[in-house]
């Protein structure tokens, strides 16, 4: 019982745990998918804003830088390039004012460097020729302010961008060129968030080829002149498109969320790319930790619920103990109905049902008891009746027979032949009735007597019955085939009647067959042992087989074969008392076989 209940609790707690885990899992997936989507969307919006702001800041800085150079050019006021103290003082003032420039250069129209500020120790750079530079060619052609692509400065061997403006003489020819080399480190620091906040969100800038010019908080890409043009966001921006994307950046070996936009320095010229990006993980990590927390909580909840289920179920099912005890008591025949548990639930209902069942059983038991007593009484009456039948019914028969005999002997002379014949009938009838009474009493006794089962040698019983028959009619030639060693469990005293009757019948009904044969044996059929007695006598029509075993039924005229008609019903009673069946198979003039089974008691 305890084991059964435990397993009920275990099953329910497992079920609840599974449900909890499932619910948690579903909630988790929803959180991860929907929440992830929302977080990414929000992040993208923020990134787009940041990108716009960053782009604006960059644009403004470059405009300022261009403005500075153009001012310098304007101040040079159409003069031919002169290297004066005034020029140097001017350039020093520009550099000292927290500008983005690392160097300022003054070039003559042919691209020869006239001045480098701050001055470099190596004097050779002073006379260097920058006419090979792409920006010089562009400026010479367009005669207006230009911004170069990234290149390595010959002055300090570092990557730089040059902003240059021409000094034009009154004829509009280039008299000199002012150029400023941008300190890209300072550009990278542009618009940088205060340290410690959002440090992993960063904007960067590439030139129109895709080379990194500025990268917030990570100058390495600039120093290494990394070409970002294969990065999807950069590629899109260089193509003039603006948007957001989630992609893998091969240089940073990271998945990124990014907003990008093109930055046009002058209308119509190929744009630079501005992007603002953050590692996806950085955005989604908080969500992941939340997911882990939810998962942990779910597990904890599952364990808690399972535990509570076990505890609760044990507690709620406690009254079952008394109910089981009650049922056991009822099972053992004690019908005193116990009070049902006052739990107010189904268990109380069950308790009441058990109590009602006990009451019903008690009433039925009483009824059965009363009936049994009645039955015993009527059985005793029957016994008394059969006693008186055996005693009192026989006395008159004896008189009829005895005095008929007396008449026949003492008054033979005065009796006509017919009278003597009638007296003979009287005697015959009374003797027959005597036999009938004896058989009836035997039949009723067989149903009454107690059964004493033991191991019985059926072959021996068959042999004994056969020997009795043979001794009664030693002149008859009957072939007897009795299978040896047929064992069964039963009451030998009762089983003897079975063989006396079955073999007696076979003996009787083969009397007209000069080659009479009677067999006894056993065969297996449908998992039970079927014992049989077979003869080659007159047999009978199977249409009458059902009536065979009823008392006083005869299938043959009395004048043909003797018998009271009670033998087979006696056989049936004995076999039934042994829990078996008896049946017959026969054909007229082809013999009959009687089968019977006995309950296989060896297994018990």
């Amino acid at each position: 019982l305890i084991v059964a209940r435990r397993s009920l609790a275990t099953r329910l707690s497992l079920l609840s745990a599974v449900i909890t885990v499932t619910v948690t899992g579903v909630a988790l997936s929803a959180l991860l998918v929907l929440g992830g989507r929302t977080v990414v969307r929000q992040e993208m919006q923020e990134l787009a804003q940041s990108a716009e702001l960053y782009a604006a800041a960059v644009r403004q800085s470059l405009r300022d830088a261009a403005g500075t150079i153009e001012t310098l050019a304007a101040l040079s006021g159409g003069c031919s390039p002169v290297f004066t103290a005034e020029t140097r003082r001017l350039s020093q003032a520009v550099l000292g004012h927290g500008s983005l420039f690392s160097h300022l250069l003054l070039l003559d129209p042919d691209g020869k460097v006239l001045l480098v500020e701050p001055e470099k120790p190596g004097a050779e750079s002073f006379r260097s020729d920058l006419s090979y530079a792409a920006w010089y060619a562009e400026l010479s052609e367009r005669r207006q302010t230009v911004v170069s692509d990234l290149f390595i400065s010959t002055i300090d061997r570092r990557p730089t961008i040059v902003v240059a403006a021409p000094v034009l003489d009154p004829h509009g020819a280039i008299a000199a060129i002012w150029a400023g080399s941008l300190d890209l480190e300072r550009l990278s620091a542009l618009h940088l968030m205060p340290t410690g906040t959002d440090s992993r969100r960063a904007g960067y800038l590439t030139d129109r080829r895709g080379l990194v010019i500025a990268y917030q908080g990570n100058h390495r890409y600039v120093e290494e002149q990394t070409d970002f043009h294969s990065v999807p966001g950069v590629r899109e921006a260089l193509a003039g498109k603006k948007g957001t994307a989630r992609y893998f950046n091969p240089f940073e070996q990271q998945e990124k969320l990014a907003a990008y936009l093109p930055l046009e320095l002058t209308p119509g010229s190929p744009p630079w790319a501005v992007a603002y990006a953050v590692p996806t993980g950085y955005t989604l990590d908080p969500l992941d930790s939340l997911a882990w927390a939810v998962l942990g909580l779910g597990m904890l909840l599952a364990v808690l619920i399972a535990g509570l289920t076990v505890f609760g179920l044990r507690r709620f099912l406690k009254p079952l103990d008394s109910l089981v005890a009650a049922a056991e008591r009822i099972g053992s025949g004690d019908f005193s109905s116990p009070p049902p548990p006052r739990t107010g639930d189904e268990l109380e209902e069950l308790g009441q049902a058990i109590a009602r069942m006990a009451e019903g059983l008690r009433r039925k038991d009483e009824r059965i008891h009363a009936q049994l007593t009645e039955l015993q009484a009527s059985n005793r009456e029957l016994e008394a009746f059969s006693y008186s039948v055996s005693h009192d019914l026989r006395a008159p028969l004896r008189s009829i027979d005895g005095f008929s005999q007396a008449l026949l002997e003492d008054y033979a002379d005065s009796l006509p032949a017919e009278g003597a014949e009638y007296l003979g009938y009287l005697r015959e009838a009374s003797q027959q009735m005597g036999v009938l009474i004896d058989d009836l009493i035997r039949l009723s006794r067989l149903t009454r007597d107690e059964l004493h089962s033991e191991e019985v040698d059926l072959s021996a019983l068959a042999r004994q019955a056969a020997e009795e028959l043979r001794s009664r009619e030693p002149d008859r030639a009957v072939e007897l085939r009795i299978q040896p060693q047929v064992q069964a469990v039963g009451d030998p005293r009762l089983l003897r009647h079975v063989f006396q009757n079955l073999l007696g019948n076979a003996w009787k009904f083969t009397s007209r067959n000069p080659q009479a044969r009677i067999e006894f044996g056993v065969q297996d059929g449908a998992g039970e042992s079927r014992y049989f007695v077979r003869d080659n006598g007159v047999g009978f029509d199977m249409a009458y087989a059902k009536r065979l075993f009823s008392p006083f039924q005869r299938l043959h005229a009395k004048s043909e074969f003797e018998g009271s008609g009670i033998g087979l019903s006696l056989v049936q009673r004995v076999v039934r008392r042994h829990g078996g069946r008896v049946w017959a198979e026969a054909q007229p003039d082809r013999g009959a076989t009687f089968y019977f089974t006995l309950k296989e008691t060896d297994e018990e």
Partner: protein
Amino acid sequence: MNDRYVFLVEDNPHDVKLTERAFRKSNILNELRVAKDGVEAIEMLEKGDLPQIVLLDLKLPRLDGLGVLSWIRGQERTRLLPVIILTSSKEEQDLIEGYRLGANSYIRKPVDFDKFVEAVRELGLYWLVLNEPPPLE
């Protein structure tokens, strides 16, 4: 042959007649005295001399055969009398009780008169001729 009388305890007059006839037919010449119930049987045994044998029916008015048998075995004077139960009953219970109370023999009266005569003849031959009764004191 011993010529003391045979004491028949039998309430059915027909059976008495038939028994008398059977004795006659079997050439048993001993006197036959009859008691019609158990009480009468005891009175007769108390007052008169003792018979050679007692033929005792079981189902009797007033006191039944087993009662008579028990009385006979209880009396010093009669306790050695040969008592043969002659009855219609073949109930096992009667047989056991009869022998337990000390019956010398138990014979069932057959319906067939010829068989009855045969039984009485054999009974007479054995108990009246062959058997040596206990000495009377």
